């Protein structure tokens, strides 16, 4: 193609168009350099007082939280502001933890961060850390300890060393199962994960196609990759019905498509009179989520204040309102925590303690998905 008088386009215009396109492509492919996030006070010499943080939070006026439960933000906002006599707006929308991390990193690179509070699991937190966006250590107990004494437990509940002191616990993802009370008696339920491969459960179990929560068994002493893979093969031979995700697994039991599962929570459905209930399997692995205020948070003080409140008083609020949520096991007085130990007094609960466990668990998950349904 030639450019000339016939085209009605001069060379300068052509070059302008081409250079605009090239710039756009370059921007797309190269992105901007990572914006160095302003330190949000994590490494500050002087520990701020609670009142100073509260005043700063009031000034900021907003917290943007990315979670998978935006439907309860209004509830949180009302209770949080009532508790602290503030008028802080709690906004946000529905993003899975992985998407939230991607968005956080992309926005930071583009120099336009918007997220204040995320709740990544350890493996996603590692990715945020690699991008240098995970918060620095912060004096959580010194700042908030007087107003919220339990913050110490929440912060210490984070077991993996590199994350200690950098975030409180958002919640625990404790993998118990759910079952149809009209299809199976409580005494007939499996007591261990290995029992899911027994003949009496053939064709009755709803299971996550990626094998979750089996990959978390790597944190249990005595379990290794091979033992988990053998278990997955046994479960697969027992013809479970696979569903894509823990929510779908839970729904399959509630709808009556399956008799029981190894994941899910049916507290709300049970309260509505549906013939379903939770039950516990041994050993019980827990994946802890971290209330993460990234280095780039536009409203760091409001975010920290809210993170502390939601970590400590959020679960209690949801419990009062009879809303399903994941447990916070360090809070022994919660109904769900008590239920676990009442149901299984000898329950053995295990947490991630090293980054290596997190990495191994990811690797096992990839293999499980391939073995179970070819979707790894």
């Amino acid at each position, binding site marked *: 193609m030639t450019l000339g008088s016939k085209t009605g386009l001069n060379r300068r215009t052509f070059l302008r168009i081409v250079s*605009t396109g090239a710039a*756009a492509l370059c*921007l797309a492919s190269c992105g901007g350099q990572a914006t160095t996030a302003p330190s949000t006070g994590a490494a500050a010499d002087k520990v701020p007082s609670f009142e100073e943080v509260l005043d700063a939070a009031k000034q900021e006026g907003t917290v943007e939280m990315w979670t998978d439960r935006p439907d309860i933000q209004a509830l949180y906002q009302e209770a949080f502001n009532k508790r602290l006599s503030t008028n802080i707006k709690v906004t946000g929308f*529905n993003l*899975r933890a992985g998407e939230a991390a991607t968005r956080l990193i992309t926005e930071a690179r583009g120099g336009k961060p918007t997220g204040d509070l995320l709740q990544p*699991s350890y493996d996603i937190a590692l990715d945020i850390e690699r991008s240098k966006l995970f918060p620095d250590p912060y004096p959580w107990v010194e700042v908030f300890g007087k107003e919220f004494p339990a913050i110490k437990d929440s912060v210490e509940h984070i077991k993996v060393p590199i994350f200690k002191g950098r975030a409180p616990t958002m919640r625990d993802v404790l993998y118990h199962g759910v079952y149809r009370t009209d299809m199976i008696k409580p005494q007939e339920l499996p007591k261990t994960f290995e029992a899911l491969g027994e003949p009496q459960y053939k064709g009755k179990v709803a299971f996550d196609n990626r094998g979750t929560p089996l990959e978390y068994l790597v944190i249990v002493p005595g379990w290794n990759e091979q033992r988990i893979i053998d278990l997955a093969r046994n479960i697969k031979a027992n013809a479970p019905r696979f569903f894509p995700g823990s929510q779908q697994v839970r729904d399959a039991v509630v709808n009556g498509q399956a008799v029981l599962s190894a994941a899910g929570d049916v507290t709300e459905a049970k309260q509505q009179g549906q013939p379903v209930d939770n039950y516990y399997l041994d050993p019980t692995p827990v994946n802890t989520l971290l209330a993460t205020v990234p280095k780039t948070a536009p409203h760091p003080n409001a975010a920290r204040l809210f993170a502390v409140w939601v970590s400590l008083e959020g679960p209690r609020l949801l419990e009062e309102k009879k809303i399903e949520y994941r447990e916070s096991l360090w809070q022994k007085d919660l109904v769900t925590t008590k239920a676990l130990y009442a149901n299984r007094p000898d329950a053995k609960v295990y947490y991630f303690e090293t980054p290596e466990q997190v990495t191994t668990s990811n690797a096992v998950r990839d293999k499980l998905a391939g073995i179970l349904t070819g979707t790894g």
Partner: protein
Amino acid sequence: MALIGRRLALTAQAVPGRRSRLSLPRLAGKTPALHLAVASVLALFVGAPLVVLILTSLRPGAALPFEDVGLTPSNYLTVFADPSTYRLLGATLVYAIGSTGLAVAIAGVMAFLVERTNMPLRNGIYSAMLASMALPPLVITFGWVLLLDQRIGLFNVWLRNLLGSRAQEGPLDIYSLWGMVFVTGLAIAPTFFLMLAGLLRRMDGALEEAGRTAGASALGAIRRVTLPLLTPGLGSVVVYGMLILIQAFEVPLALGVTAGFPVLSLRIYILTQPDMTVPRYGLAATFGMLALVIGILLMLGYYRIVRVATRFQVITGKGYRPRRFSLGRATYPALAGALAYLLLAIGLPLLILFWATLMPGDYQPPSLDVLPSLGLSSYARLFAYPKFLEAVVNTVIVVVLTSTTTVLLATLVAWLSVRSRTAFGKVLDVTAFSTAAIPGIVSTLAVMMIFVATPIYGTIWILVVGMLIGGLGFVTRLMSAAVTQISHELEEAARVSGARSLMVFRRVIFPLLLPALVNSWLWVASHHMRNFTVALMLASTRNVVIASLLWELWSRGSRGTQISTAAALAILMVAALLAVATVLRGYTERVEGRLA
């Protein structure tokens, strides 16, 4: 208009065989400038995502395309060394061919009945077909699960009772290959219907009548005249169908996992949407590249089919007038068949969805025991839901803007590629069409990276940009097929009669393209009403739309009352699109009436 028509016919006969290039938007001889302008827009909106796709496929692990971690072919090695990739491709092929075949058969018959016969209720059926596209495939599939699940499916329960069976499961199972093909075929048929309806509507009945005069039966005329003339259109449908089915993940996600029949799209989806881990963009992009290559191969096949496009120009200056077949005694059986399809494809899932809206809490199958607890509280909850009104307003703005812009751009691309018939035009066409092969998550990520530092980030305008890419591939195919059918004799004749470019466009080309324009607009609108990927990835507190609300309620929080609220929202979406489709259909009919 009739006078102009006669003049057109006479003039067209007077200059037989003369070929013109790009006569409509001649724009005072600046057509290459138009080429470049369109090319620049495509470079920005298509080239950038393509670059991102390629770069992402060359980054290791979960790295993002802009991360400075070096380039590596490791993802390609992983994909091609893994035997499961080939099983996945085989399964994808079986699924895509089966679903496309079923959908083409349904859509072909429905489009013929609606556009080329005197069947009663044609407009109502047309609107119902379009409105059904507002239903997210996940929602339709959920309806079918409730009807055909082995254990709780209503049909299975009835069948077991009818047969006196004591079995707890069966006899039918939606979680199977045939279940996936069945649901996908039904779900995608309205899209194919749109493509074929536009083609059939513009077909000159005189050609079939000539066949009949020469001794062919009605079926013979259809087989030997209508079908061959539809070749490029059918080619488009099959190519596009295969391509989107390589990517469509909703039905495979809902059924394929349980059926034990994973396909390529499901793999990409699971890699990019893990529950608790970092998305594996590198592998997903590599599979996306695989889909892109398959798409380009399909495109090349398509170009081979239509390489002599003038063969298929059926709207000429020689007295073009679409005619309808009289169905005679077959009128009511045909109507019954069409209504039976609508009942099966739309009616039953909608009924079950409506039942779900009446639930006070979690879904329960229809039974007399549940009746006393039913109510309309889900609609009240929906109207009281935070941001519902804001979402409705934003959705209207985004959908209208996106649909209009997409149709405009696609029409320009189609016109330039079909009429200029240069290599550059073909490049434009392939580039626009290739958007259909880029995984939505990757193109959205690209848009985010390009616009994150601009003022439109976080506003509804970023959604318009993000969604523009999503519909361009399909609408380009639709408009290419439409433009291919219009002979340039018409424009030349009008020009010889003294009409200027604008008048030729307004009085000749626009009315002839109108059905395809309306169909394209409605297709884009219906798909973007429920486009979760863009709405979620580019979401902010200022740009909430119905799609993100529906996803929030349905897919990630289907607890308790949320599922009935989501079902209420889906029902209202269908009702809204039904109303819009009916109005636009009426407008199209009026314009065509004036033309005739």
